[in-house]
């Protein structure tokens, strides 16, 4: 069935009262309210109010029975100047985010290139690499905690088996390796997602451009650097931003695998907020709200900065 193109001209010329021509400009306010109202109520109840409430709480000390007292910016002052654990969590989160984002996108691109170049067993590899994406963090976390186990974990077993027993580690129990161990798990789960997106973008590239490059005797590396990556840039930027935001809010995998330990070595801002809100046997939701507000502002600032830095100034034409 051919799609109907509605131009501004045809919309403007639609006779008043024609039921088939209901649009934003012709619908009554009651109709608009009837359609938007339920959504706005849900949005207000589940998004707008909690956000406003979090901002409100961040300026208060919240006690039992929802009693609260105004403390101004005291929570923020405490957070910024006197809370070593918060800064430890910030450091871990930033490390995890920066390294993880770059590794995530680069790794996904490499896997996609591997499949794009018609590697043997491509279909099988695609399934294998994508399967972890379908697993929940709980399952992934439990599997990798087993893999990392000192005594019976697969990683140490292999190290012992190949004669590298001296390198066996309590991967999640040592503050020097725990964050990296969690990061590897995270990459294992998400590489497949980035691979699929990159692969779809690669298949969408115009064949004539790549063909012309080959006719010009362009080598594979030059083709990758000067043609493929620039043309994939919008996709890669989107992946970078998505990956970045996801890692800045990292909670579940860390919670399952290390609970922020050992010695706060894997504490992220999100796990710290949760602990302050619900694990400290304290009713105060003001301080954790202040962390959440501050961190949200920082995430938005980083995303804006990143988008501006990576924005393509000249549009590619092909």
């Amino acid at each position: 069935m051919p799609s109907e193109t509605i131009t501004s001209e045809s919309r403007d010329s639609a006779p008043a009262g024609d039921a088939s021509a209901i649009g934003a400009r012709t619908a009554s306010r009651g109709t608009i309210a009837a359609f938007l109202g339920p959504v706005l109520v849900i949005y207000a109840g589940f998004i707008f109010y909690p956000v406003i409430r979090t901002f409100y709480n961040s300026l208060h000390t919240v006690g039992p029975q929802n009693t609260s007292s105004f403390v101004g910016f005291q929570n923020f002052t405490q957070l910024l100047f006197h809370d070593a654990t918060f800064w430890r969590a910030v450091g871990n989160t930033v490390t995890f985010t920066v390294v993880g984002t770059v590794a995530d996108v680069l790794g996904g691109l490499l896997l996609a290139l591997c499949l794009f170049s018609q590697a043997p067993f491509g279909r099988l590899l695609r399934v294998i690499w994508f399967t972890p994406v379908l697993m929940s963090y709980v399952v992934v976390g439990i599997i990798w905690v087993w893999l990392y186990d000192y005594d019976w974990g697969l990683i140490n077993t292999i190290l012992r088996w190949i004669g590298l027993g001296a390198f066996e580690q309590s991967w999640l129990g040592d503050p020097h390796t725990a964050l990296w161990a969690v990061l590897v798990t995270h990459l294992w789960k998400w590489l497949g997602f980035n691979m699929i997106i990159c692969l779809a973008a690669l298949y969408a590239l115009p064949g004539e451009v790549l063909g012309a490059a080959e006719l010009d005797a362009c080598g594979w590396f030059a083709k990758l650097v000067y043609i493929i990556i620039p043309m994939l840039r919008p996709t890669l930027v989107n992946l970078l931003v998505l990956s970045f935001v996801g890692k800045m809010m990292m909670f579940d995998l860390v919670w399952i695998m290390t609970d922020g330990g050992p010695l706060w070595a894997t504490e992220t801002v999100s796990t710290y907020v949760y602990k302050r809100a619900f694990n400290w046997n304290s009713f105060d939701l003001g301080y954790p709200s202040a962390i959440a507000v501050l961190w949200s502002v920082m995430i938005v600032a980083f995303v804006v900065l990143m988008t501006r830095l990576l924005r393509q100034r000249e549009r590619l034409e092909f």
Partner: protein
Amino acid sequence: MKSLLIAALALTVTGGAAAKAEDVTLTVWSHEADETAKVALREQAARNLEASHPGLHVKITWYEKDGLNSALRTALPAGQGPDVFYVEPGQTEYITSGMIAPLDDLVDWSNIYDWARSVWTVDGKTWALPEEAYTDELYYNKDLLAKLGITLPANGQLSQGQFLDLVTKARAAGMTPVSAGVGDRPYPGAYILAEALLRKLGTDDYGKLLTGKLSFEDPRVVEVFTWVKSLVDAGAYPKNFMTLKLGESHQYFFQKPGSVVFPMGSFYTGRAFVPVDQGGQSPDFPLGIMQFPAMDGAACNSCKTVAVGASFAINAASKHKDLAAAYLNELAKPEVGKQWIETVYLQTAVKTGGIQFSGPYAAYFTELMDRQKGATYFTGMPVDVLSGQCKDSFVQVMNKAFPGGLLGVDEAVKMMNEGCYKG
């Protein structure tokens, strides 16, 4: 004739009203819907109460904990809550908001241990009836201990030097001395350290330590940390201590690879006394219970930690407080306490002293009760008593990093002091 008719009518009406007044439904909301032994016991108490109160119907609604708490949070403020409901220590919001009734004059407390009642005593009033209790115990494998050539003294308590010797001998014999893992819990790694601190300091100073009134740099505290460090350095804990989960640590002890001792709450039985194919210990496993080691120069080597779990409170808005209290009294009968131990396989706050236990684990419970003789109790596990930064420090330092060998004594003491000490 007319007056006779009126009299007969009046008799019928009043008689009917009297029958109606006895027709009461007492509502109970309880957690632990999936614990069949506890369900059976609480239902049996309800039937017993119905039998002694004709016209009374006790309706128990079973929940899991989150569902129960959500339901209570909405029902109680609306005045629609049950007459009796399940609570646990720490849920003080019901007390501060005036939603539960004081039970001092309602319940017969003669059947409840004083230490258990004290857990629910706030501002001089008792707010809930404790049903479940547990103590910190040091389980051991009798066969492995015999292989090491170690014999327990009559009181079941090694000295701190003898315990270090046990650890050293076990490692030399290729055994894991202590099974413990902190992969999914904030407390198992701290059992030995916390119990040693309790014995060394006694209940008063230990309480002060946990509430920030005594410094972790106190020489006695440092001595205990130093002793535990010597255990850690001697290889007391499994190498996968950091990732071993609570359930796995049980199996590590009684199944594979096996350890000599296992510090655990007496709720150990909840995992161990289930069929082997469900992960329980073998019926012929040589399980023993020793006291935590006696500390040199200790203030109270008979001290041990006790904690309360499942409890029941009466809704302050209940119109049937006397009947609600009667239900709690049913739960608190010594024979119900005995039945609790024999079927739930956990300790109870109900006095069971002098009762002969029967059933497959009678010997275990007899030994467990023997280990309580002469004990001076400190109420509450540290992880439940502590709050805020101090709790976080406890979890990271005393539970994980210090027994995990990541910290020296000075670092651990300093970190605990920074988190806890308010002096």
